[in-house]
C-alpha cells in the first residue's frame, strides 16, 4: 500500500502513529514490570485494570456531559482523575483479595489466581455494562499537518501530541517517585530482597499495595487515552492489550522501567509498521514473533538484568 511518490511521508506517518500507540503500551507495561520486579508474579489481571480504567473514563465523560460540564479540558481532567482514582482502588482490592493470601505460597497458585481474576473482571464488566461495543464521539479532533509529499499529508493530531506528552509527564513523575522518595527506595529494596527489607522494619505489605495502586493508576491513564484515541471500547480490550504490554515488558527486560517503555514503543512501532506495509491481520503475529526471536538471543530482554543464578 505504498503511496508511490510519498514513501517518506507515509513512513513518517506510521512513525507518529506507532509512537503514540507505543506510549499507551508502555504505560501498561510499566505496571507489569513493577509488580513482577517486586513480587515476582505476572499480574494477569493488569490488562483488565486498563480496561476498567477505560470504562471508568467513559462513564465519567458521559456523566459529566449529562450534568452539563461540557468544557472539554475540564471534563477530561476530571474524568482522568476519576478513572485513575477508582482504578487504583481496584488495583488495591485485587492485590488484597487475590494475591496477598497467596504470598509465599508456591509459584503457580498466584498465577492461576491472577488468571481467575482476569476472567472475573472481564465477565463482571460484560455482565454489568453489557457486551456491546461502547462508542465515544471524538473530543479532541484536528491537528497539524507536518508535511505534504505528493498528495500524502502527514498529520500529527492534537490528541497524539497530548498522549505522548501526558505519558512522558506521568513517567517523569513516576521516575521521580521511584528514585527520590522513601516509597521508591522501599520499592527498590523489596525488589532486591523482600525478607531482608521486612526485617529492616519497612512495611512490606504497604509497599507492595502501593506498587499495585500506582500500577493500576498508570493503566487507567492508558485506558483513558485508549478511549480517546480509538473512540470505542468493550470488555475484552484488556486481554490482548495486556498480553502485548506484558510482551513489551519482557522484551524490554522485566524489572527494568526504561525497558518497559522501550518495549512498549517497539511493540507499538512493529504493530503499526507491519499493518501499514504488510497486513493488518498478522500484526500481532509479527509482534509475538519478534518477542520470541529477541528472547532467543537475549534471554533476559533488551535492558534486563541478567539473572545469574548462584551456583
Amino acid at each position, binding site marked *: 500500500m505504498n503511496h508511490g511518490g510519498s514513501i517518506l511521508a507515509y513512513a513518517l506517518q506510521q512513525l507518529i502513529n506507532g509512537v503514540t500507540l507505543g506510549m499507551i503500551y508502555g504505560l501498561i507495561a510499566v505496571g507489569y514490570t513493577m509488580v*513482577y520486579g517486586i513480587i*515476582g508474579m*505476572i499480574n494477569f489481571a493488569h490488562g483488565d485494570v486498563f480496561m*476498567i480504567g477505560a*470504562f*471508568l473514563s*467513559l*462513564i*465519567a465523560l*458521559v*456523566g459529566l456531559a*449529562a450534568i452539563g460540564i461540557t468544557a472539554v479540558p475540564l471534563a477530561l481532567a476530571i474524568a482522568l482523575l476519576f478513572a485513575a482514582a*477508582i482504578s487504583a*482502588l481496584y488495583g488495591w*482490592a485485587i492485590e488484597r*483479595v487475590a494475591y496477598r*493470601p*497467596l504470598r509465599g*505460597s*508456591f*509459584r*503457580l*497458585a*498466584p498465577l*492461576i*489466581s491472577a*488468571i*481467575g*481474576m*482476569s*476472567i472475573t473482571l*472481564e*465477565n*463482571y464488566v*460484560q*455482565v*454489568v*455494562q*453489557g457486551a456491546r461495543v*461502547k462508542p*465515544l464521539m471524538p473530543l479532541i479532533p484536528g491537528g497539524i499537518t507536518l508535511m505534504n509529499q505528493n498528495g500524502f499529508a502527514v498529520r500529527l493530531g492534537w490528541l497524539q501530541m497530548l498522549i505522548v506528552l501526558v505519558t512522558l509527564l506521568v513517567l517523569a513523575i513516576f521516575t521521580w517517585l521511584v528514585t527520590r522518595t522513601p516509597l521508591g527506595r522501599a520499592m527498590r529494596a523489596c525488589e532486591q530482597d523482600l525478607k531482608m527489607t521486612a526485617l529492616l522494619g519497612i512495611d512490606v505489605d504497604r509497599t507492595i499495595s502501593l506498587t499495585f495502586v500506582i500500577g493500576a493508576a498508570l493503566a487507567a491513564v492508558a485506558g483513558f487515552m485508549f478511549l480517546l484515541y480509538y473512540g470505542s471500547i468493550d470488555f475484552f480490550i484488556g*486481554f490482548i492489550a495486556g*498480553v502485548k504490554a*506484558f510482551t513489551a515488558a*519482557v522484551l524490554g527486560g*522485566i524489572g527494568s522501567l526504561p525497558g518497559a517503555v522501550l518495549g512498549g514503543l517497539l511493540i507499538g512501532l512493529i504493530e503499526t509498521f507491519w499493518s501499514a506495509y504488510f497486513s493488518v*491481520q*498478522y500484526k*500481532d*503475529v509479527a509482534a*509475538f*514473533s519478534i*518477542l*520470541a*526471536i529477541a*528472547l532467543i538471543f537475549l*534471554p*533476559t530482554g533488551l535492558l534486563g538484568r541478567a539473572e545469574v*543464578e548462584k*551456583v
Partner: protein
Amino acid sequence: MSAAFRDAFLSALVALGLFGPIVGLQTVPAPGGLALRMRPVLVGVLVALVFLGRLLFLAFWQMRRAGGAKTFQPLLSAIEKAVPLRQTGRFVAPLLLLLALIWPFVVGRYYLDLGILVLTYVMLGWGLNVVVGLAGLLDLGYVAFYAVGAYSYALLAQFTGLGFWTCLPISGLLAALWGITLGFPVLRLRGDYLAIVTLAFGEIIRIVLLNWVSLTGGPNGISGIPRPTLFGLSFSGDGPGTFAGFFHLEPSPIHRIVFLYYVILGLALLTNLVAIRLRRMPLGRAWEALREDEIASRSLGINITITKLTAFAVGACFGGFAGAFFATRQGFISPESFTFMESATVLAIVVLGGLGSQLGVALAAIVMIGGSELFREFADYRMLVFGLALVVMMAVRPRGLVATRRPSISLGAARAISAEMVAQGRG
C-alpha cells in the same frame, strides 16, 4: 466487636468505590451516543452483602482463634476413624475407573455428552501434566497442540480421504513436531519468560488459523469432518457396512455417541498409562530432576535440551490426539474453540489437581468441567463464576486436591512426599 464493625464498614466503603461507578452507572445506548442508567439499589445490595460478608468472616476468624478449633476436633477425629484418609486414595482411583467404564449404561444422553467432554479435558490435563507437573515447564499455550491435532486431522481427511484411525497417529506426530519446534526457542528461558512466550505462540496459532483462509477456512473453519468407524463399520444408517446393520440393531444416534465415549476413554487411559510408565523410566525421572533443580541435573550429565524437548513433544503428542478426537466428535472445527481460555482451563486443572498427580488431575477435571456445566443455564454468569472459582480454589487449596507426590521407585514401602517439599520448577 467495634473493631470488626469498623473493618466491615471500611470494606463496605471500598465496595462502594468499586461497584458504585461500574455497576451503578450503566452505559446504555441513547440518541447521540450513550447515556447513564443509575442503579443505586443494586449497588446498595452489593455493598450491604460485602458489609455482612466481612462481618461474618471476621466473626468466624475470631471464633476459630478463640478455640473454635476445639469444637471441631472431636468431629474431625471421628470422621478420620470412619474413613481413614490414607486408605481412601487407594479406593478412589479404581472406583472412578469402574464408574467410567459403566457410565454410558447408567446415564442418559446429556450426561453421556458431559462424560465425553470431561474425559477430553482429563486427557488434556494428563498431557499438560507431563510438561508442567513433571518437567516443571510453565506452558501457557497448550491449546496450540490441541489445535494442530484437530486441524491436521481435518485437513488430512479432506485432502487424502484417510480415516480417523489412520490420521490419529499422524496428528499426534505433527503435534509432537510442533512441540519440538516450539521448544527450541524457549530452551534457555526461565519461569515466567517461558510462560509468556508459550502464551504468545498459542495466540500466533490462533491468529494464523483465523486468517489463513485458503487453508483453514478462516473463521468459518472446516466442516464435514468424517466420523470414526469401528473396524470399518460406520455409524450412520443401517445398511451394509454400518454398525447397526452388522449387529442387526435399530439404528440410533446413541450408538455413535457411546462409541465416541469409549474412544476418548481409551485415549485418555492410554495417555495415563504412558505417563505413569514414563515416570518410572529414566526419562521421567530426568523430567522430575529437571523440575527440582536444573543446575544439579546438568552437573550429573543429563542433557537438558533433550529432556526439555521430549517433555514438550510427549505433552504435545497427547494434546494432538485429543485435538483429533475433538474434530471427529464435533464434525466441525473453527478457531473459536482454540483460544487462550482453553490453555488457561487446562492449566487450572493441572494446578488444581496437584502437580504431577494423575488422580488429582482427573478429579480436578471432573470438578471444574462438571461444575462449569451445571452453570450452563446462567450463561452470562457462568464465566464470572468460573473466574471467581479459580481465585477461591487457590486461596483455599493452593497445592491442589492431591497435595502429595508418590515416589517412582522405592526399596521398601513407598511413602508419599508432602507437596511442600516438591519443587515447582523454574522452567
